[in-house]
């Protein structure tokens, strides 16, 4: 089996979820080729090999620095052909997921997104995907000879295989008609830990009382090297930016640790956090529904507990 993995870059660096996609492909067995499009750091490209890619293709054409979905999907469909790939694996993301869907159509492949485990190939090719916003899973059989799989965070364990891959330049021919969307400007938090990729998330709800109180939450996040999230009303009221909103209608997170402060635990919020490994809830109301979904809970006032918790985290280092 030949597996092609699309690795996404962000400011030249390979996204961690893309390395998980390489590890996922390695876990499937077969020959793994990774492909990166646009500007990418040479050392970072080389490091992809450690997760099991024997070959790393790099298309450095500067026109690929803008993430045009149509362009990326044409390049990847062609790369699948050139590499004789049976399967394309990539990480779910605002870029990866639509690109994968288009590649599936271009190549006549069966497609699944939100895949959470390695495929079962004992009879056919069956993947487990998350549905109903994490409230259930479906086992779906991909019947076409070619397959495109978009995986969610933690679908594969990120571990080094001890192998070394070689980086090769990949020449692309771009089609002008594919540049069918134009990015006018990008506003992006730099240096911040991205919420969908974070291993620890510290999240605040309406119980934080107002944006002016976020300092104590940010202190805890900093001490834990965590990303920050919030409930929907918090972003609706503009206390926090919209991309921090976690839940059914926001970002779905899957960290090792999710700490919810002053969030009641409405089912729509839980839908975005139910893939977290460990959930800590801090709420002054002992009957808050969130406690039922938590691993650890503290009943108390956030304004009292947060500074103490931050101090305890720093002391334990």
């Amino acid at each position: 089996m030949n597996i092609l993995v699309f690795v996404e870059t962000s400011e030249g660096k390979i996204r961690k979820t893309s390395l998980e996609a390489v590890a996922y492909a390695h876990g499937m067995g077969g020959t793994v080729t990774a492909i990166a499009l646009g500007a990418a750091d040479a050392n970072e490209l080389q490091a992809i090999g450690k997760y099991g890619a024997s070959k790393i293709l790099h298309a450095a054409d500067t026109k690929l620095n803008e993430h045009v979905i149509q362009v990326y999907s044409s390049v990847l469909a062609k790369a699948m052909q050139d590499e004789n790939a049976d399967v394309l694996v990539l990480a779910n993301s605002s870029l990866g997921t639509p690109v994968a869907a288009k590649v599936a159509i271009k190549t006549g492949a069966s497609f699944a997104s939100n895949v959470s485990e390695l495929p079962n190939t004992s009879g056919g090719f069956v993947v487990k995907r998350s549905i109903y916003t994490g409230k259930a899973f479906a086992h779906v059989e991909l019947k076409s000879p070619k397959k495109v799989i978009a995986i969610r965070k933690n679908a594969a364990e990120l571990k080094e295989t001890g192998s070394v891959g070689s980086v090769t330049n990949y020449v692309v021919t771009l089609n002008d008609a594919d540049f069918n969307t134009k990015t006018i400007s990008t506003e992006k938090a730099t240096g911040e830990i991205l919420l969908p990729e974070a291993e620890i998330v510290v999240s605040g709800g309406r119980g934080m009382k107002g944006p002016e109180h976020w300092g104590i939450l940010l202190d805890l996040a900093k001490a834990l090297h965590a990303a920050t999230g919030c409930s929907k009303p918090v972003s609706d009221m503009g206390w926090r930016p919209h991309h921090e909103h976690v839940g059914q209608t926001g970002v779905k997170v899957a960290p090792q640790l999710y700490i919810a402060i002053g969030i009641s635990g409405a089912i729509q919020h839980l839908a975005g956090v139910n893939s977290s490994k460990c959930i800590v809830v801090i709420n002054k109301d002992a009957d808050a529904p969130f406690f039922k979904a938590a691993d650890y809970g503290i009943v108390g006032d956030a304004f009292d507990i947060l500074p103490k918790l931050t101090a305890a985290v720093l002391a334990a280092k």
Partner: protein
Amino acid sequence: MKILVCISHVPDTTSKIAFVDSNTKFDTSGVQFIIGPYDDYALARAIELKETSGATVTVLNVGLIDTEPTIRKALAIGADDAIRVNAEPTDSLFVAAQIAEHAKGYDLILMGRESIDFNSGVVHAMVGEMLGIPSVSPVMKLDIEGTKAKMSKEIEGGKEQVEANLPLVAGCQEPIAEWKIPNMRGIMSARTKPLKVVEPKSTESSVVTQKFELPAPKGAVKMISADNVGELVTRLKTEAKVL
């Protein structure tokens, strides 16, 4: 301008999910069905465009007859007419192929960023691919200027301003518009608005669901005293091993 809004018919966000027939079928008992929350944003923006620039709004659903109350609700909110493709929406590629069959001739095809049952987040990209037109998602702001759409699109950790020519497919999310609630007049007029039922174009599906599974239940919460916050840190380190 002609706008097509594709709506999914999904369990209410508070629904408890369960399966029957040895985990091969969704258990609909006691479940309330709604217009997908993201699709509701798409519909709300379409109605705003209708009010400000005189567009016509058609809603489309791929579903069996039980989705008709959901379609009527979209008509009550303000859509002019509706199409139901009479088929079970088995997988995204199948749904996209059905939508693409009917989406030609529209200037703007609005969808939700994702359905909340299968959460694929791809039907818009697939329809764009099938029709050879741009698709953008998730769109938080959408304005039409002449033959161009100006959009704000969410990306990980931020947003992008994106432009594309019409016709175009957009997957919508908040705060593109405020959800609209049907009023009495809307509900009355929805009863007589045209709802066309069409048979699916046969497309064999290359993705087959074998069975469903529920996540393993969570263990009981371990409570820690507010006077002993340090214990939480210790237990996260040594017991849960997440620090």
